[in-house]
């Protein structure tokens, strides 16, 4: 399900990252380690869901084929999703969820900062709004990386495992393809490869304070941005889309 318009693809990537990660986080609701984290994880999920709605609505508008946010969210199969592999990875333990969130938040913050200066005002205004929320997301996940890393022996071990196990999904965030290059040349999008030095620097600074080791492998797993996903996304969509698939057009 390729889109001819790179702008639509670009917007789907933005919307799908937020939608899939928001859905993953919502799986914690009812299972949080403490009431405060229960609320925090639900709030972050809600922010991401709201951001996703704005990106997907704009994608549908630009595409101009009558697909709105709901059709895009509920009626695309895994191959039509454009999110990064990182955000669809299962929650694991709390440290794994935090590692995934931290990697994404640092990237998301840099990306939205750049997009808030986009030449397309519709992109710029969504990014500027989302950026303020992501400030809070980053403070929370960064704080947890430090607290767990520089915590007990067990929390340190778990945090290091999360950081290590998800590392090879981080390279994909910075791989620039034809869609990225086109949108960046149009002054609408950002070439993600330009964000990598700042991302590495920020991640390294936090890991160092957290007494954690920065992973050294350079091999990267890739595919999400062009619709080639890990097996996990199918299960996630099966749950998220169930109602609309079983009862098309249902609403309340």
């Amino acid at each position, binding site marked *: 399900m390729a889109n001819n318009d790179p702008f639509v693809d670009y917007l789907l990537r933005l919307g799908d990252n937020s939608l899939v990660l928001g859905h993953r986080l919502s799986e914690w609701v009812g299972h949080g380690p403490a009431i*405060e*984290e229960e*609320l*925090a994880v639900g*709030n*972050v*999920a*809600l*922010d*991401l*869901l*709201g*951001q996703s*709605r*704005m990106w997907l609505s704009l994608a549908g508008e630009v595409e101009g084929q009558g697909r709105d946010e709901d059709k895009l969210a509920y009626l695309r199969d895994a191959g039509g999703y454009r999110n990064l592999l990182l955000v669809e990875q299962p929650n694991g333990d709390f440290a794994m969820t935090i590692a995934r969130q931290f990697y994404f938040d640092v990237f998301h913050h840099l990306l939205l900062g750049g997009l808030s200066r986009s030449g397309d*005002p519709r992109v*710029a*205004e*969504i990014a*500027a*709004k*989302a950026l*303020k*929320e992501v*400030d*809070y997301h*980053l*403070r*929370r996940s*960064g*704080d947890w*990386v*430090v*607290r767990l890393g520089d915590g007990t022996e067990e929390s340190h071990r778990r945090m290091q495992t999360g950081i290590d196990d998800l590392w090879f999904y981080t390279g994909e965030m910075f791989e620039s393809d034809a869609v990225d290059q086109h949108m960046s040349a149009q002054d609408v999008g950002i070439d993600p490869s330009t964000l990598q030095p700042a991302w590495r620097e920020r991640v390294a*600074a*936090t890991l*160092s*304070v*957290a007494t954690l080791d920065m992973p050294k492998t350079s091999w990267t797993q890739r595919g999400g941005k062009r619709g080639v996903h890990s097996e996990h996304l199918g299960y996630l969509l099966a749950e998220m889309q169930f109602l609309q698939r079983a009862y098309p057009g249902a609403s309340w």
Partner: protein
Amino acid sequence: MKAARPPEGARPLGGTARSDARGDTSVATKPTAGQVWQWLEAVPDPEVPAVSIVDLGIVRDVGEDSGPEGPVTVVTITPTYSGCPAMDMIAEQIESTLRGHGLERIRLVTRLSPPWTTDWMSAKGRESLRQYGIAPPAAQSVIAFDPKQRIRVVDPEIECPLCGSANVECISEFGSTSCKAQYRCRDCREPFDYFKAL
């Protein structure tokens, strides 16, 4: 800011009265924008009912547009947080409130830019929050993440809404709604909500 409330006696919505040959019969007396603002002040935020949507800065503009059946009152609102589930209810309440005052042609417009900030909250809104038991937002927006600084630092402007002490601590920057954080007072020992700066 465009959304600054118009002064008393602002011009009536729909231009000068009686200049309309078609004769607008939908509203007995054409309300001024100032009146519409006043009506909207009676609409509470669904999640923090102590404060109105006007005092929160959600209503950005009240204006008028022409429609096929006559002038339409246009109310421009902005979402607080992207995922705030109260926005739909706020839109419904605006409509039903204005209909209750006799306005028939109403259009709601959502504006994203500039993004909503707690700096738009009115002095009255801040005071109502305090009396309701929620510490009002500090003027400064979000502090950037710095790994060297444990974030459970407290903005000096935050005071316990119950005893007024500034000796407070942050429990979590996320609370029962998107717009609130959880704090605790070290003096009176009470936990309280803080309407966080955005």
